[in-house]
């Protein structure tokens, strides 16, 4: 038998797709502030930097990273501050359409994610979960961090 681990996920929606990240590596969920300071010459998906309790946090737009074209904003948009390496330096905000819910599940429930097209920038997922006929793709945070770093 494989080792079965309890996992806690935070799911969010980007247009018609649902994704999730490891909830234990989420530091904050924020409303999108009015004043995101744009960083000149940064990649397109970097929305800018924000001030979070006296620290500078870069914000990346997940919609662009996921290869979506329509990126109109509305008031449900949120920023999830993730911390992949558990240190100040690795904190980054990801902007999503809407934050959904916290999901408790087991690692044995995960299925391999089917990667077809080359639309988005993300290269690897930790797996896919099927809940109520809905697929939830779990994002590999380290891969995401690497992409933003590039």
């Amino acid at each position, binding site marked *: 038998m494989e080792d079965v681990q309890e996992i806690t996920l935070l799911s969010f929606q980007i247009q018609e797709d649902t994704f999730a990240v490891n909830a234990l590596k989420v530091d904050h969920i924020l409303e999108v502030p009015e*004043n995101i*300071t*744009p*960083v*000149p*010459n*940064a990649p397109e998906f*970097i929305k800018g*930097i*924000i*001030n979070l309790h*006296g*620290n*500078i*946090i*870069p914000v*990346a737009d997940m919609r662009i990273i996921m290869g979506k074209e329509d990126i109109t904003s509305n008031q449900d948009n949120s920023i999830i501050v993730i911390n992949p390496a558990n240190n*100040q*330096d*690795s*904190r*980054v905000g990801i902007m999503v359409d809407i934050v959904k819910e916290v999901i408790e599940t087991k690692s044995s429930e995960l299925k391999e994610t089917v990667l077809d097209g080359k639309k988005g920038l993300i290269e690897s997922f930790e797996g896919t979960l099927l809940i109520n006929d809905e697929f939830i793709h779990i994002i590999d945070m380290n891969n995401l*961090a690497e992409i*933003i*770093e590039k």
Partner: protein
Amino acid sequence: MLDKFKAKFVEESMDNLQDLEESLFLLEKDLENKELIERIFRAMHSLKGGGAMFGFNHLSDFTHHLETIFDWVRNNKLAVTSDLITLTFSAIDHIKNLIKTGDLTDEQELKGHNQFILRLQSVLSDSASTLSVHSTVDSQNINDEISESKTYLINFIPQEELLQNGTNPLYLLDDIHALGEAISIAYTHKVPSLELIDITANYCLWQILLNTSESLNEIKDVFIFVEDECELQIDLIADSNILQKPECIEIIKKARKGNSLLKIEDFQSLSQLKPSSQELESGEEKKKITAIKEHKISSIRVASHKIDELVTLVSELVTIQAQLSLYSESNEDPVIVSLSENIQKLSRQLRENAFDISLIPLQSELMRFQRLVRDLSKDQGKDIDFVIEGGDLELDKNIIEHLTDPLLHILRNSIDHGIELPEERISSGKSPKGTILFKAFHSGANVIIEVSDDGKGMDLEYIRQKAISKEIVDQNAVLTDKEVLDLLFVSGFSTKDAVSDVSGRGVGMDVVRRKIANIRGEVSIDTEKGKGTTITIRLPLTLSIIDGLLVKVGANQYVIPISAIDKIHALDPSQLKKSFNNVVVLDKEQIPYIDLRKVFNAPEVEHDVIQMVMIKAEDRITGVIVDSVIGEYQTVVKPLGRYLKKQEILSGATIMGDGTLAMVVDTSRLLMERKSKKVAG
């Protein structure tokens, strides 16, 4: 729990090793300095003891052999030679390794370890066979030891805290008794009445009369681990064994009965000694003890992350305080205004204090440099005097951390390429011994570090030819001396033809410059052929707070460090339009300029007056055009983090009083990018 103690031991051992290295360097210059030998011996002794206590058995065993050598040295059985010092240096390296890795498990390493111990042992056996040679030199001292036993009076007055470290004073007494014939007297008159007694405290003190043929050092060693926790005085009272004399027994009886401490004078009738010289020594001993005590409370050890945290908190306070003053200005309540002013004053003091705490003396790194110079010069057969001035200068620890590698590289260059071999130096009329001067000093808000050697200097023509052959410059280019030296900083340029083990491994001055630039410093070179080379590093005092000029470019605010700014010019737009090649004429000088709006992709708005901030870097002035200048601003610079490190022109961001962000411009990087044409002017 034990891990914590272990970590502490490792930390303390590193200090001990540093002390050891320092003493060795001094000893090398003054081979017979008793005090230094004593210091070395003590450091080794603590290493050995601590090592055994915390399970570093190999360390303890190894240090034991090393300690034995220095025990012979301090007892004049062995002379200090430069070979011995070299051996000790490599032994210290081995000890460092043992501390880092703990006990060895790798067989290969273990073999090396054992061989090293044999080498240490051979020092002793070699010297034993040649002892007769030394004995003539040291006959005086050896005679002393061979002579009859002596009687000492030992005053051992421990502090009340003695027991808290797990020391059992009775074991110490046992050790003393093992040295010879001894009579100890315990005094209990300080023991308080029962209700006042603290069961963890020690209230006893002892006097011991010891007759031994061992040296005074041997007696002192018994107390080596408790010397900070007690008052210790050892006096010679007689040149012979007086313990069995009836007068002596009488004196002891009296002391035991009356709880009155023995004095040296009590024994005057029994001894044939002139007390004068002994008193002198014990006085000195006392002084030493007090010196140690004072030193102990004058500094405490704090984990560096705690200091980082303090600095971060203070930085946040400064930010909040700025918000408060902004609020108090708009809200004309006089109470708030005065409160805000007081808080401003306090937070400024607190900030200065916190930053002062995070400064550490350069000294801590100098040991590595000394080692490098010593080891490399020996390897290469060069004779080099390494002179340090201003080693006590203090710098932000984050700066020092980033300074070590570049400085090591510069020193390597000086030894490898700069200082000539002794014969070469003599033939060019210099003293055979080369000098490398390391000098650190304050200059305004900067710290300057100069490394100069009196070696052969750099051949400008050679550098030029080399640059031409590498197609870095055009053959017909006319270059000033300074421009030629600047070529050294161009990536991929290295002047040494053969790649040596030391420097020239493809890492050149370009890396040095880049690393120094990372901590907002500048590097420059001065050289004179045949006379030597000086490398100057100019550094800011601290990394995290700077005085900046707040400017606006497009919708964003940016901070330009004031230290980089020469002045600000207001230009007529026509002045720019007339210029071609991005040069503006000011005071009949042609000044290149950079338009920050283009660099940051901001829309170009027409202004009636153009604000140009003049930036000074490496003796050159460059204009930087901004939309508007807002004013001076004290800035807490926060890093942009790993995700934005590609944004090299921006060295960080700062939080303004109203909570918005402004990005800090790295001027030297901006100018560098301009040179490499990545940035359009």
